Structure formats: structure tokens, C-alpha cells
């Protein structure tokens, strides 16, 4: 039995070695990006399970990006959910091969949390290489029009019941920071599973509004709410205004900051709105492949057929280039320590009752 066993094993091994040899040989022959990617497969590792928004963006990108990478590699999507995508980020950072065959699709939280949260992930966001972000979403606060609070100014003096999911989610973190930095009176009811459950709670008047949901998402699911004036957007939670919302004269929350430090804290926490869907690769990928991937990323997101599909799927495409995102992250991680510390405290403090 043992004899037969070892023979089978030997056969398997020799075939494997032969195949591997062939691949290595062809890669060594031509030292160019095209030669490297020819016949290769790129895995896009998504930090959420199948079916969510991050997954939808990754699959959309995977269907098109291969056409723009020299050598036209096949691109497949793998789902690796867990720990708010920190697991996938850790995998891309430390475990995945550093040859440009693995791309991570992570949450903005996985970029920001190591700086602002207590959780110590296995990755260092400032060392990841960014291919860019597929969209930027403006977070907003909105309320039922029958609620006593009518403007953002009102929340500074009157209580407003807002629905939120768990800690680390924008629906909990952003109103908490507003309470602690601007002195707003959001009464934050935490525990809803996600933004869809919160909107249902708003619909049944269990909560009066919510703070920290993406504008494009909510207006897609409930366009009639805004058309008929069932709800009203109170404030924008971003660094700069969204054209639609600016037209509706919705103020920016950072404009209510009373000091430069306050403003810096708010900017730090709200920075994630400008990179809604970051795509990353591990540190150590050869520079010419990084350049090719970044170029392909932008080209794919400007491609007509991708945009048409995105339009159909109601996925908002607003690319941010890899270089710009890299600079942005570098700047975030260079924020003065006392600002970071204040932001941490503002995030950690218990929601006011």
C-alpha cells in the first residue's frame, strides 16, 4: 500500500513541478508587465460577503478591468468577509503574494480605524498601495418632515431620535462625533442591523431620522421620499458639498465648527466619504505593475460599457485615482497627534442621552 501511495504522490509531484517550471520560465523570459500578466489570474478579495455593495462594485470592476491591463489577465472575485473588512485588508497586506495578482476591495473603515479606533488590525493602511477608489459618497443626516426638528440649527437645541447600527458604522460614529464636537443633541438608538433597517424604522416612525447614510444609496432606494417631501436632508457630512445637495441648499456640518481644531477633527472623521470604495494591493509590488494597475483601474472606471452597467445597477461611479488616494491617506496619517487624540475621544464617548 505504501509503495503504491508513494508512486501516486511522485506522479502528482512531478506533473506539478513540470507545470510550475513552464510558468516560471515564461515569466523570466520577458521582463515586462504584459508578459507577467499574460495567462495569469488576478484575484479581487472583497472584504464582505457576496451580495453587498462592496461586492457589487468589485464584481463590476472585475468584469472590465482585465481589458485594460497589459496581457489581459482573467479577474475573479473572492469573498473574504470578516471584522469590517479588516481581515481582507490584513490578508492583502501580509499574506497575499506581492506580485500584483491580488487586489483587495476593502471598506474605508479599514483605512481609518487603525488610526482612530482601538482595534489593532494586522495591516498598516499607510503602507498599503492604493489603486484608487471607485466612488465617493456624501454622508447625510435626514429626518422625517413631521419631526419637530426642521434644520440642523434646531438639533443644537432640540433632541432628535436617530437610528444607528453598531459602533464603527458611520450611522453611529458620525452623530456621536457631532454630539461631542458641535454639541448637537442626537439621541442615538443603536443596534439596527444596517441602513435598510434604519430606513424602515424611520418609515414606521420608530426613529425620526438617521445621520451618516450615503446620499446616493438612499436616494436610489427611496426617490419618492425626497420628491414628495416625506423626509428632509438636514446636513451634509463631508469635506465639500455634493452638487445635488448644494443645489438643495443643504449646509455642511464642518461649517458649524467653532475652532480650527474642531474643524480638523470633523475633517479627519469625515474624510472617508471621499474614498467610498478603496481598492488596494500589498506593499512590495513592482513599481511598473503598480503603475499599470492604477492606469487600468482609472481606465476601466471611465469605460463606457462599465459606466452603462453601473448606471443600470444604480452604482454611483466617481473614481479617485490611486496617486490621489495615496496622498490623501498619507496626509490622514500625518494628522497632528492632538487632533487624532481628540477625534478618538469624540468617537469613543458614550452617545448622549
Amino acid at each position, binding site marked *: 500500500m505504501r509503495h503504491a*501511495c508513494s508512486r501516486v504522490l511522485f506522479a502528482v509531484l512531478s506533473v506539478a513541478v513540470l507545470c510550475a517550471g513552464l510558468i516560471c520560465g515564461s515569466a523570466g523570459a520577458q521582463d515586462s508587465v504584459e508578459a507577467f500578466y499574460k495567462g495569469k489570474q488576478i484575484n479581487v478579495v472583497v472584504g464582505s460577503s*457576496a451580495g453587498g455593495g462592496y461586492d457589487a462594485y468589485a464584481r463590476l470592476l472585475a468584469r472590465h478591468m482585465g481589458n485594460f491591463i497589459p496581457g489581459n489577465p482573467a479577474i475573479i472575485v473572492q469573498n473574504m*468577509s470578516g471584522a469590517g473588512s479588516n481581515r481582507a485588508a490584513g490578508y492583502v497586506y501580509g499574506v497575499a503574494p506581492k506580485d500584483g495578482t491580488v487586489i483587495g476591495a476593502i471598506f474605508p473603515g479599514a483605512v481609518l480605524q487603525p488610526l482612530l479606533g482601538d482595534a489593532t488590525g494586522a495591516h498598516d493602511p499607510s503602507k498599503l498601495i492604493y489603486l484608487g477608489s471607485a466612488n465617493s459618497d456624501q454622508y447625510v443626516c435626514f429626518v422625517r418632515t413631521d419631526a419637530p426638528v426642521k434644520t440642523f440649527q434646531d438639533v443644537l437645541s432640540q433632541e432628535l431620535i436617530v437610528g444607528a447600527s453598531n459602533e464603527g458604522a458611520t450611522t453611529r460614529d458620525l452623530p456621536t462625533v457631532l454630539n461631542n464636537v458641535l454639541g448637537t443633541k442626537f439621541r442615538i438608538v443603536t443596534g439596527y442591523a444596517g441602513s435598510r433597517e434604519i430606513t424602515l424604522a424611520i418609515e414606521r416612525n420608530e426613529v425620526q431620522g438617521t445621520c451618516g447614510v450615503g446620499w446616493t444609496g438612499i436616494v436610489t432606494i427611496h*426617490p419618492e421620499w425626497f420628491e414628495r417631501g416625506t423626509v428632509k436632508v438636514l446636513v451634509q457630512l463631508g469635506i465639500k458639498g455634493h452638487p445635488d445637495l448644494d443645489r438643495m441648499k443643504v449646509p455642511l456640518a464642518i461649517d458649524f465648527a467653532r475652532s480650527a481644531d474642531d474643524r480638523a477633527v470633523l475633517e479627519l472623521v469625515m474624510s472617508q466619504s471621499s474614498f467610498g470604495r478603496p481598492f488596494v494591493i500589498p506593499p512590495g509590488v513592482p513599481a511598473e505593475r503598480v503603475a499599470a494597475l492604477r492606469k487600468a483601474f482609472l481606465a476601466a472606471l471611465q469605460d463606457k460599457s462599465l459606466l452603462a452597467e453601473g448606471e443600470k445597477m444604480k452604482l454611483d461611479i466617481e473614481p479617485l485615482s490611486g496617486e490621489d488616494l495615496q496622498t490623501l491617506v498619507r496626509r490622514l496619517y500625518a494628522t497632528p497627534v492632538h487632533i487624532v487624540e481628540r477625534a478618538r475621544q469624540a468617537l469613543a464617548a458614550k452617545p448622549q442621552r
Partner: protein
Amino acid sequence: MEGIGADAAFMAAAASKAFLALIEPHRLMFLMLGCIMGLVLGIVPGIGGLTGTAMLLPFTFAMDPYSAFALLLGLGATTSTGDPIPAILFGVPGGAASAATVLDGFPMAKKGEAGRALSAAYMSSLMGGVFGAMLLAISIPILRPVMLYLGSPELLAFSVLGISMVAVLSGSAPLRGVAAGCLGIMIAMIGSDPQTGTLRWTFDSLYLWDGLPLTPILLGLFALPELCDLLIARVAIAAGFEKADIYKGQWQGVKDCFDNWWLILRCSWIGGGIGSIPGISASVVDWLAYGHALKTEKGAHLTFGKGDVRGVIASESSNNAKEGGALVPTIAFGVPGSATMAILLGAFLIHGLVPGPDMLHKNLDITYAMVWSIALANILGAGLCYAFSPQFAKLATLRYTLILPAVLGIVYIGAFEASRQWGDLYALLFFGVVGWLMKQFKWPRPPLVLGLVLGDTIERYLFISLERYGPDLFLPWRWLASWDSFTFHLSPWRWFTSEAQIYHPVMKIILIMAVVGLLRPFLADIKRQGGISKLLTSFQMPTFHPAQLFTMFFIVVMGALVIAALPWHFSAKIVPLVVGGIGIFVAVSSLFNDMCRKPSAVVNESLGDKAQQEVGEKIHMDLTSDTGHLPVRTIVQRAAIFFGYLLAFMATMVVIGLIPTVVVLVIVFMRLEGNERWSLVIPYAACLVVGIYIAFDYFMAVPWPQSLIGQVFPALRIIPSVH
């Protein structure tokens, strides 16, 4: 915000328009295609329709909405039709919502009635799915008002009502049942706490951050113990019934369903109802329907869990109805009732449909097309299953050395599919041992599952309700405290006005029902044992036997969990402390009862008999080990061999990766255990590996964990799963 008013004629017109559109040949073809994929995905344990639906979504872009939903719903609706096949044949639940099928389906297979059980499962799936769709079809006009009426306090009450089923599902061992339920809730609390973000019992591991996934726990609790006992008994599952007439059994199964159509109707409406409540996991519908059948069916207390076809019928009719129910919040509010529905919601947007009032009015024909798709998919799915059923049923008569390696390999990969990391396999192994011990020592496992699934929901809605409405809502003595409140509760016509937002009368009624349901079996149990006075007097000096070690182990584990919880933030620890306290109290009472109760019969030698004698005459609400005829020594020895295989599997996987390990497992197991000939072993291993490769590596693109050999010799990474 309301948009009701679709009158009967309008509804009928929309329904018939949708039906005519759906039965066009090319749409039926898409539906059929979806059904076939759903069945294939459903049969493999641990895989639902989620990945399949996500991958299919892009292909539906170019289709018209009817075809797109036919394809997606065909897949979604039939994944649970295939689930009972492994549940009945091997005791391995094919999906989270068919664990209850194991309880009666597997004993039926052991009695040579696999054909009948499978047939009853398909037919009840079919009828349940159709009834569920019917419920959806007729309730369309009232969907939105009903859903808007159910706030967090009501959802909390429903979850508590669900968990009160623990009492029924504990059978003759109510104390152990409650203790197991408490353990389930505690396990559900593992991970980041939704209130404060406290990392509860995560032991610094990222894996536990999101909590334990359900699949490895269910496979561990229910599948591994059956496989272990198969190895211990060393016979075919249906040993001695090789000649059973499968076709006759099939006919009998169909007849059973028609005889029990009323039960099917009730269970499917339970499934549809629970499936339609967003935020309550539908993975327990099978247990709730099973518990309902146990409570209401004649003589069920004596035969359930021993191969009563009604148990299979109850479980399967409910879980096929849940997908129809899950459609409700998706179409009415855009809140997906299940993960598959989240993807369906994506399909809505692609086809320019906005969930909400429009779906029940302007686009009512599309809504009905979905209802029809689900109904037809269930019929097609069951039909396909019937076509292959005789071959399936024969599997139960094969010798154990042929069954075990393939099923074990697939259970491993199915568990790994849950969150695709090593932790899944540790969880599988851990709960496998716990499940086997629970089975041997007659601790009922169903309450643990109930606690596990509902515990999280209860905590979530409890905190939302407390934070939103304050604690007074939950203090019964405050309910009638003011005159206004008093008159409100006495005037039911006011219960459905906006005042319900203040007083939540429905929540109160359901909570009272839950408390009654929870206490009644205990009171009955005390009465059966001769009242409290008799209970308090029939004690003796403590006696000890090894089975009590398990109870002690349980107490220690719960104690350790409670101690670890002490330093947490108040909102993070309050529920774990209360539940842990109850669990420990109940387990200590149970232990005291075991040690100090005067024995009433002669003690036999085997573990099984001893345990049976402890829990008394009443039905034990779980599968029992049929290894009682073997001496304890042999049982322990062979169980050690079984779990040794599992450990060896994992060790090998570290070195050479998952798929090669399956090859090694097949070869070693079949040669060592059964001395099977090479001409059988090699093709067997080859087929299994090719199947696994296509399903998991090629189709699902599972990110395999790293293996030593892949690290040392990167060239070998060409072999699937070696990384």
C-alpha cells in the same frame, strides 16, 4: 406614506397577466435553469444560494424583468428543496433551515424508510412552497400596514416567543434544555457587541470578531455526531433494510403529505410569516414549525424524534415557505429578508423597479410574477428531486466505509465555506465533540440552536426598545398604571391606531404567551413527579457517575464565560450575565437532581441506557445513539478514532492544503477501515476531488488557506487549494 387600495379585480388581473407572461417557453426555461442550479447548490451541505445568486446577477442585466426574477427566484426557492437529501440520508443538514429534518428523517432512513422520508420531504417542500406563495399572494394589500405596525418591541416579543419553544423542544429534560438554550444565547453573543463595540469573548482573534457563523456549528452539532456513531456502529445507515421497496415508500410519502395537509398549511404559514419579518433570522423556522407540530399533533410526544414522518413534513414545509416570506419586506420596503434577497434587491434596481408602494400597485404584475416564480420553482424542484430519488435512497444502504469519507470531506469543505478561514474548522471540530457528548448524555440539542439564532436578535431589539421607549414598557405592573393606559388596554379597537406606538399591546400579548409557553411544561413536569412537596423530599445522598462530568464541564464553561464578562461595559455585559446566571443555576439544579434524586429503576450498563433512565419515561426530544448495545469501552475507543481522523485531517491540511487532504482521507480511511480494493478507492477519490474542485475552486473561487508545502515549494501552488 401608504399606498394600499389594490382591489380584488385589479389583483386578479395582475396575477393572471403575470402568470401568462411567466409560462412563455423561454421564461420557463430560465426558471428551470435556476431550479437545477438551486438543487445542486442545496444538496451540498453548507452552501446556500447566496454565491450562486451573486454570480448569476450580471447575466440578468440583459433579460426582461420576468425572466430575470424567474432565474434568480428559481435558484433561491429550490436551494432548500435539496437540503433534506443529506439530512435524511446521512443526518447532515444540507442547510441551516433543515436541521430539524434530521430529527425524524434520519431515523426513518435507519428504519429503511429513506424513500418515504425523501418523498414526504419533497412533497411537503412543494406544498409548503406553494402555500407560502399563496399566503404572500393574498396578503399583498395588507403587507405594508402590517409591516409598519411591527416595531422593534414587537420583533423582540416574536423572538422571545420563538425562544420559548425551548420548553417544547427540550422534551423530557426541561432543565437541560434551558441550560442548552442559555449556552446557545451565550455563543450568539460572541463578537463585537452592537451597543458599545466591546469585543465579547473574542480572545484576540479576528475570527471571533463577527461572531461564530452558523453553518460550522450546525454541522458540528448535528452532522459529526451522526457520522461518529456510524463509525462506532460500523454498519450501513439502513442496515438490515437493503431490500426495502423504494417506490412503495415514495408513494407512501406522497400520501403522508396529503393526509397531513392541514399540518403543512400551518407550518408553511409559520415559515412564510417568520420569513417575512425583517431582522429575525429565518434559520430557525424549521425548529419553530417542528415545535408547533410537536405541541399540536396527536401522539407526537411519543413518536417524534423516532422517525415520525410528520416531523419531516413540519420542518420541510416551513423552510420552503420562508423564501416566499422573505420576499415581503424586500418588495414592500426594500429591506431584504435574507441574504439572497439582498441580491434580488440589486436586480430590482437594474430593472428600474423601486421597492415600496409601487410594487404593490403600479408594478403589481411583476410582484405576482415573483410569487408565481416561487410557486412554480417549488413544483419543478420537487419534480426533479423525484426523478433522482430512488438512486439517492439507495445511498443509505451502502456500507459505512463508502459513505463516511465523501460525506466527511464535504462536511469539512461546507463548514469552511461559512467564512473561509481556519476558525470554521476549529468550530466544526469543537461543536462536533460537544454535539456528540450531548447526544450520548441525552442533552437536547435543538434548544441550543434556538438560543444561538435568536439570542442575538433578542439582545438587539431589547436594547433598541429600551433606548427608544424606556424600561417602563417591560414592567408589567406599569402597564395598567395610568387611567389612559388602563382604558387603552381594555379597548382592542384602539390597538391598531397610532396609540399602539405608545403602548405596544401586541408586544405585551406575545410576551405573555411566551412566558406561559415557557412555564407550562415545567409546571407539568413538577406535577408529573408528584408535586413540589414530593420533589423536595425524595432526595438521597449524592451519587456520582461519569455522565455528570459533562454537566460539571458545562457549569465550568458557563462560569468562565461569566467571569470573563465581568469587566465589560454595563450594556455589553448585562444580557450575558443574566443568561449565564440562569444557565448556571439551571445546570446546577439539573446536576443536583441527577446526583440526589432517588433512582426508580435498575441501572443498566450502557451509556445510552443510563442517560435514558435519568430523563425518565417521557420522550427525549432529540436523536438517540443506537450504539447502546456496544460496551462503553468500545464506544469511547471508536469515538476517539473518529475524532482522531478529524484532527489528522486538519493536521494534514496544514501541511498539504485542503483538496489533497481529501484524497489522503479517502485513501487512508477506505484502506484502513474497510480494506476496500484499490480499483474502488482510486476512482472514488478522483470523482470526489474533481467534484470538489469544480464546485469550490472553479465555480465558487474559495480563497484557500495557506499550506506549509505551498510555502516551502511555491511551484506546487499549481495544485488546487495549495497556497
